[in-house]
């Protein structure tokens, strides 16, 4: 909560302005009865048309003034609330981008989306409302109370008695409701999650004809959302009837004691009437309370959720704070020394005691069974995760001492599953770097063996890719993703099984092109044909490095390697790679 208030502070001038203008309006409203009494007493009673006209003129001027104040206050209030929303959203998004990958994965994507949109909207709307109405309620209540006390201290005190009750009830409800609304937003996360999953897996759901099952699952989650919203709103809706009841009890008390006081002679009828009037006015002001209480509780819950994400430790890697090495990676040598690693949520290591040394410009093939830790090894070089034991050295320096940015800047990465963004092909390739010319884009596309395909498209490089580039084949998308990595002119290139959909000629041309770039290349592959020319082959098995060396060495030393070789070149399993 505190954090959110800090955001408002930036706009305190505009916020104060909005409140001030609201007070101007309120004042005009309050002096109206005064002016009307002038019209009656000084004008009508004395038969003076001029006075009547004069004061009606004043009335008109005052209302125009109030109107102008109101319009201007609209600008200020909207400015504060929109800027607030903008700032929080940007801060939160920046924070999410600053999360380490491990911390990022602690949050469900759908939940982060809800926080960035829906939760912030709640805060924003409530701020707007607050600047325009919320203060009005307490002002009217306080004003009426003071007037009542001035009119008759004893009877006014009765009215004052209702205040603590009011206060406690509202505090209690807001607190309780905030918890309930917190739950509402969580359920909204769940609904969002099912929705996201269904949109992502739409084809699978279709081919397995699971529409009804998914609908049931969705109905279950939206049903829970409905229930939690209903119970939260029910609680806040108690506010108004209950508080009005308390106020009304106050009125009855005023009438009861008022009658006694009048009898005793310590109060006049006028005074009692005045106090009853003030009570009525207070009750009237409180009529909008339910809405305010529910808006406020909901905003509170949302603010907590936003703060939670904002306060999360970004999980910046150890050694942060210590001065980072400046300069960038130039050679591209990589050394692993007794590296062990496990994912935060899993308790068995995926990589154990891995040691190897790669010299600049070498081509390294990583080979191993499904689930043997090949991709995990790459994620460590990428610094998406940190090793638990051992040391990784890049250009001879401990990877922890490098600024992660510098590491990333020198790495080109092509992930296993193709991730393209909405936009044109050109946007997607260009995305890999900054300030690149069109020629460079074409060059990268040519290296990735996708240029000719792109030129055949009616809009060429300006062809829009839909969500995940839907109209291109898997292999074509893969090559765009390779071009995106190559345009960075990386010192270290990581290819995570990303040539699986390429035919032999294309792959050979690609690897040749990469060779000419003289970068250190790590290549996860299933194909012996790609490993044959590698300078170093790392053979992984269940997280352990069971063999390293070149093709000839491994053929001699490793039974597993020979088995893999057999599987591809023996009688049993020839690949018709050229048919891909």
């Amino acid at each position, binding site marked *: 909560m505190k954090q959110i208030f800090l955001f408002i502070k930036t706009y305190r001038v505009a916020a104060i302005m909005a409140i001030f203008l609201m007070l101007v309006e309120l004042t005009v409203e309050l002096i109206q009865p005064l002016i009307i009494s002038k019209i009656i007493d000084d004008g009508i009673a004395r038969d003076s048309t001029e006075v009547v006209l004069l004061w009606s003129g004043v009335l008109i001027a005052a209302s125009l003034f109030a109107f102008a104040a109101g319009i201007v206050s609209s600008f200020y209030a909207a400015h504060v609330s929109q800027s607030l929303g903008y700032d929080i959203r940007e801060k939160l998004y920046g924070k999410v981008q600053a999360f380490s990958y491990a911390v990022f994965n602690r949050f469900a994507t759908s939940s982060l989306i809800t926080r960035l949109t829906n939760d912030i909207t709640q805060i924003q709307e409530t701020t707007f409302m607050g600047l325009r109405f919320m203060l009005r309620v307490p002002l009217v209540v306080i004003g009426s109370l003071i007037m009542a006390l001035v009119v008759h201290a004893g009877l006014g005190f009765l009215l004052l008695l209702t205040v603590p009750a009011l206060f406690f009830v509202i505090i209690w409800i807001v607190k309780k409701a905030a918890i309930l609304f917190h739950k509402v937003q969580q359920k909204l996360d769940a609904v969002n999650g099912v929705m996201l999953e269904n949109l992502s897996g739409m084809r699978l759901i279709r081919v397995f004809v699971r529409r009804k099952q998914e609908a049931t699952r969705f109905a279950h989650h939206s049903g829970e959302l409905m229930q939690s919203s209903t119970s939260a709103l029910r609680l806040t809706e108690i506010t108004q009837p209950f508080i009005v009841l308390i106020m009304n009890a106050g009125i009855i008390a005023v009438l009861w004691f008022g009658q006694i006081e009048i*009898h005793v002679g310590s109060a006049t009828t006028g005074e009692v009437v005045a106090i009853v009037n003030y009570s009525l006015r207070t009750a009237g002001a409180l009529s909008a309370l339910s809405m305010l209480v529910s808006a406020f509780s909901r905003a509170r819950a949302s603010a907590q959720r936003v703060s939670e994400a904002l306060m999360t430790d970004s999980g910046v890697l150890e050694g942060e704070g210590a001065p980072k090495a400046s300069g960038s990676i130039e050679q591209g040598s990589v050394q692993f020394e007794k590296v062990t690693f496990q994912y935060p949520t899993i308790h068995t290591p995926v990589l154990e005691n891995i040691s190897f040394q790669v010299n600049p410009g070498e081509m390294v093939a990583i080979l191993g069974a499904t*689930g043997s830790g090949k991709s995990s090894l790459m994620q460590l070089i990428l610094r998406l995760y940190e090793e638990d034991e051992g040391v990784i050295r890049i250009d001879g320096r401990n990877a922890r001492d490098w600024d992660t940015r510098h590491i990333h800047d020198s790495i080109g990465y092509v992930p296993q599953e193709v991730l393209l963004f909405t936009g044109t092909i050109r946007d997607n390739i260009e995305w890999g770097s900054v300030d690149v010319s069109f020629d460079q884009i074409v060059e990268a596309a040519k290296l990735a063996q996708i240029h000719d395909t792109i030129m055949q498209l009616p809009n060429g490089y300006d062809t829009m890719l839909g969500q995940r580039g839907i109209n291109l084949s898997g292999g074509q998308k893969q090559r765009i993703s390779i071009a995106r990595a190559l345009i960075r002119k990386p010192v270290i290139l990581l290819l995570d099984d990303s040539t699986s959909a390429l035919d032999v000629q294309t792959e050979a041309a690609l690897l040749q092109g990469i060779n000419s770039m003289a970068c250190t290349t790590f290549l996860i592959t299933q194909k012996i044909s790609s490993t044959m020319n590698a300078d170093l082959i790392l053979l992984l098995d269940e997280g352990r490095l069971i063999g390293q060396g070149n093709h000839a060495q491994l053929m001699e030393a490793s039974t597993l390697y020979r088995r893999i070789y057999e599987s591809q070149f023996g009688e049993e399993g020839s690949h018709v790679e050229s048919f891909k």
Partner: protein
Amino acid sequence: MWKALSEPFRYRKSTAAVQVVDAQNPQNVNRKKQKAKDWQATLKRIWHYLAHHKGRLSLVLFMVMLSSVLTLLGPYLIGRAIDQYLEGPGGSPWLLFLAGLAAVYVFSSLVSWLQNIWMIAIAQETVYRMRVDLFGHLHKLPIPFFAKRQRGELMSRMTNDIDNVSSTLNSSAIQVFSSVLILVGTVVVMLLLSPLLTLLTFLVVPLMVIGMKWITRRTGVLFKERQRNMGELNGFIEETLSGQRIIKAFSQEERVIGTFREHNARIKQSGFWAQTISGFIPKLMNGLNNLSFAIIAGVGGILAIRGAITVGVIVVFVEYARQFTRPINDLANQWNTLLSAIAGAERVFEILDEEEEAIDEGAARELESLQGAVSFSHVSFSYNKGEETLQDISFEASPGETIAIIGPTGAGKTSLIQLLSRFYEADSGSITVDGHEITTIRRESLRSHMAFVLQDSFLFEGTIRDNIRYGKLEATDEQVEEAAKLANAHSFIVRLEGGYDKILQGDGSGISQGQKQLLAIARAILADPAILVLDEATSSIDTVTEIKIQEGLQRLMEGRTSFVIAHRLNTIRRADQILVLQEGRLLEKGSHEQLLERRGLYSNLYQGRMQLQ
């Protein structure tokens, strides 16, 4: 200081406002009319949803009337108390009266509480129904629809837009009811007191109408724009969060933050104008009411001087004018939420109005069982007009045959399968299954006889067991494990913490891409279909494991028609038919031996491959 003060007036004019100016152009009158019509239609559809709760809704309406009466009764009773009892001797009539007053108060609170909680239930159920409808409808939309939309944008409709409808129905509906009621009541009393002054009060009504029109014409567009911007932002956020790994690896955080800022600024811009201009409404109402106050006081004063009316009437009238203000003000305040709700609802209905997958007509048949004969005859297809993806494809597969589809990337292999699964419809030619034109078979019925291992093996958040069971919901645990063993997934599953009950996270961390494919294969095995489709099903699986599952796959393919997109020579050689595709054309077809004899592309590639080894 000055900067802070002048900031709110430096927002750029919104594009929506420009559109409004266009709309004022006489040529665009039609469009304006259309807009009004859209509004009515939207409200009507919301009403259609509410109408499910007609019974409870009339109960709420009744409660609103009751509480309006009670609200008026309270002050009246207090008036009587002051007139009759306050200066009186007290005693039991006074006590009785106070008890009566207390009863009215309690009753009034009770009624307003009841109306509120009933309305909440109605509102929430309505919103629930809208959500479920929207979700259900999405599953009926053709696959190409999803190719054009961002997932996050669609999600925004489900949450942000529907939420707007929800908050309006929760609180505003009752307010609108009661405001209208109180308004009508006040007008009646005012007319009875002095028709002339009433008329004067209403002098401001035309101004009100003009003002409201000016405002709503703008805000209607603005709210819609804001919601659209919100949807775009949501789409952007979803994409960048799903692609977080790439962003991290490329250190492109600043770039995406930059783009985010652009989206964010657009929302700020449209949101600012929507909020500011709709914020004019209560101010306008207040201002006009104050104006009518002044008119009453002025004209009334002059009339009183001339003796036409009494001072008392003026006083009462001013009081009523104030009462007249309250509900109008409330209405005006609600207008804001109402507008954004309509904008939200419109966006929801927009999706609901998207045309469903060409509806399976009533005549569409159910397939009880399927032998698995498949035939393509002169099938052509294109995703976009002018770019033929498949041209004149013809082949026949007898039940139980294995068909291998090979060709370079982009040759149309996957597209061919998309046609068979009816994700897309062929432009010309015909596809039959067991002799039935597939367009005459209900999609779901057709698909229920097929099993697919798609290129990207999608897993749901849930246990491994549930993910495999997705292939056949009623499968026992033993069957699930059996399938996993056949797919060679069993051994890695049992080594995982939690084994079959391990919960897979949304991002699938802790399990590799190849393992995902093994699970997808197990899922297809479990489904036990008549037609099996394997689209690069083993691309991420190492070759040693691949050989291990070959046997399982071979057994799986026995007795069913199988379409296999693969590179493994073994699989291809064993296939009954090989289809060689290139640039959307079926270049060659036949068995391995036949194709070798033909000495065409296949034979060339095959020989080349052999030499390479």
